[in-house]
């Protein structure tokens, strides 16, 4: 588990090329230059914090 956010350590999921995002302090996201990546990291942090079960939704409606 990540000591920063409590997220599962999922290096196996990410693959070797990507650092463990859950170890990046949230304050460091503020100067992030990429709003898409920033939103993605915030979503992940929210999901980890929320702890709700994630299931796959219907793919033929947005």
């Amino acid at each position: 588990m990540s000591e920063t956010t409590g997220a599962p350590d999922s290096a196996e999921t990410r693959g070797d090329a990507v650092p463990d995002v859950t170890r990046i302090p949230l304050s460091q996201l503020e100067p992030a230059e990429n709003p898409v990546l920033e939103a993605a990291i915030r979503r992940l942090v929210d999901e980890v914090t929320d702890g709700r079960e994630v299931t796959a939704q219907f793919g033929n409606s947005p």
Partner: protein
Amino acid sequence: MIRSRGWPTDLDVASLIANGFQPYAFRDFVFKIHQRCNLACDYCYVYTMGDSSWRDRPMAMAPEVVRAAAQRIAEHAETHRLDEVRVILHGGEPLMVGREGLRATVSELRSAIAGGARLRVAIQTNGVLLDERMLDLLGEEGVEVGVSLDGAPADNDRHRRYADGRGSAAAVERALALLSSERYRPNFAGILSAVDPETDPVGTYEALIRYRPPVIDFLLPHANWNRPPARPGPSLTPYGDWLISVFDRWYDAPVRETGIRILDEILNLVLGGASRSEHVGLSPVTVVVVESDGSIEQVDTLRASYPGAGETGLHVATDSFDDALRHPGVVARQLGVRALAAECLSCPIHRLCGAGHYPHRYSFGSGFLNRSVYCDDLSRIIAHVQSRVAIDLERLSVVG
């Protein structure tokens, strides 16, 4: 009727449950409220891929079927203590039930599911009938509206046409202009768009964001190992290449212009999260379909595999949704890594792609225990996203 004998037909559900597998409750209930469509799109999985079951069902879902299905949802939500469920009104073209039919359907749903789980109602439409009166009704009923459009008019009209050959873009663009206006925008759920590698990906994306959709969902055309996708041009991965061009345009914009569902999910997977889409990742699929005659079925896109592929033999009048949770086809989509073929398990990104969209794995004989027919395309887009994200995260780590 052609029947597949391949996996998961022979899945031993009782043994799985005895060994600890617990089915995940359904959250998305797709109601096929109208079986006919006012368009004749050439790639439609309902009408053009060999399944003609729509001909034998009632054209519209009768009020008593809506009521029975809604009561089954309430029962399911109570049994599993769900705090939210979503009903997606689908077809055919669901707006063909008319304004009063829609109002009655939503009213029946809200009445049956009142007091328990929060009910979200969405509709997926081709947009042709989406005028101000219809939008007023959908607004009053709190229905989220998704519209299908494949990009710029000429690109859209390559596939999305009326039966007489006329393109649908002009009508759909009128609808989207209304839906994206301040008055109706709160009900705008997003745009569905099928990927055509013969179109300009950036041009397609920019044609769609003119309507400021909250989400764009780019879908790979339905295909499988017996019916492989068209691959025009010299590239071996035209769909992956197309998505990469869209990704770079979207990812490098100075602001986040919209969500792109498949790319948002790949990003989340690359970062270590789980997918909320049935197109990538290994999250359990919690979708079930109610046909216009009350039959309970698996996701209807399975029709693209072989006729009758989505059948469960269950009906809302006699069976609960919990009964459907024990159907091999439903269980197969909740097994995660255990539902992957051996060739996938040896691939380093199998937890990211999840072997892609389930219908795209089908092959006569072996059923759905295969890699995706889009495997190379998915590998290419996922590797690209991994590479871009790795560079940016490394910079964040260094700055910190």
